[in-house]
C-alpha cells in the first residue's frame, strides 16, 4: 500500500521533471551534490566599539556597586 503511494509519488516527480525538460538521472530524479568545503556561518562575536562606548558609564556603576569583586 505504502509502496504504491511512493511509486505514484515518484512518477509524479518524474513527470513534473519531464514537463520542465529535465531528464531524470539513473536510480532517482534528484541529484544533490554536497559542497566539498564546509559551510561557514560567520557570527558577529567581535567586540563592537560603539557598544563599548555606550557601556562605559554602565560599567563604571557596576564597579562602584560591587567593590568586593573589583
Amino acid at each position: 500500500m505504502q509502496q504504491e503511494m511512493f511509486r505514484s509519488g515518484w512518477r509524479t516527480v518524474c513527470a513534473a521533471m519531464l514537463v520542465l525538460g529535465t531528464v531524470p538521472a539513473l536510480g532517482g530524479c534528484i541529484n544533490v551534490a554536497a559542497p566539498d568545503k564546509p559551510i561557514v556561518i560567520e557570527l558577529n562575536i567581535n567586540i563592537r566599539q560603539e557598544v563599548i562606548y555606550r557601556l562605559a558609564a554602565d560599567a563604571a556603576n557596576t564597579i562602584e556597586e560591587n567593590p568586593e569583586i573589583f
Partner: protein
Amino acid sequence: MATPIRKSVAALGLAGAVLVLGIGGVAAAQSRDPSYAAAKAAGQVGEQTDGYLGVVGGQSPDVRAMVKDINNKRRAVYTEKAAGKSTIEEYAFATACRLILETKPGEKYQAPDGTWKTRGAGAPERDPRCP
C-alpha cells in the same frame, strides 16, 4: 473572607524580611576581602583586558583559588548586567577598560599585547577600542 487579607499581610511581612536581609547582604558585601586587597597591592594579581582578574607569575594555591572565585562572581555580574545591552564578552571588556584606568600605581594590569605591566604615574596602556 479574612483568609486572603491574612495571606497578603503575611506576604507583606515576608517581603519586608527579604528586603531587610537583602540590604544586610549588600552592606556585608561592601568591603573587599583583605587577602584580595593585599594580593592586588602586591601585584600578585592584575586586571586582564577581558574584564577578569589574572594571576601574575607563580602564586600560591590560595591566591589562585581566590582569583577563580572572584572571576566566577564577576562573570555572574557581567551576565546579569549585559542582559539586553550587549554580549557578556562586550560588557566584561567595557568594564576592563575602566578597571585598568582605575588601577593605582604599583598594581598590575594587562597591556593590549598580553604582557603584565605595573601601573606607573602616567596613563595605562589600553586597548584602542577603550573609550
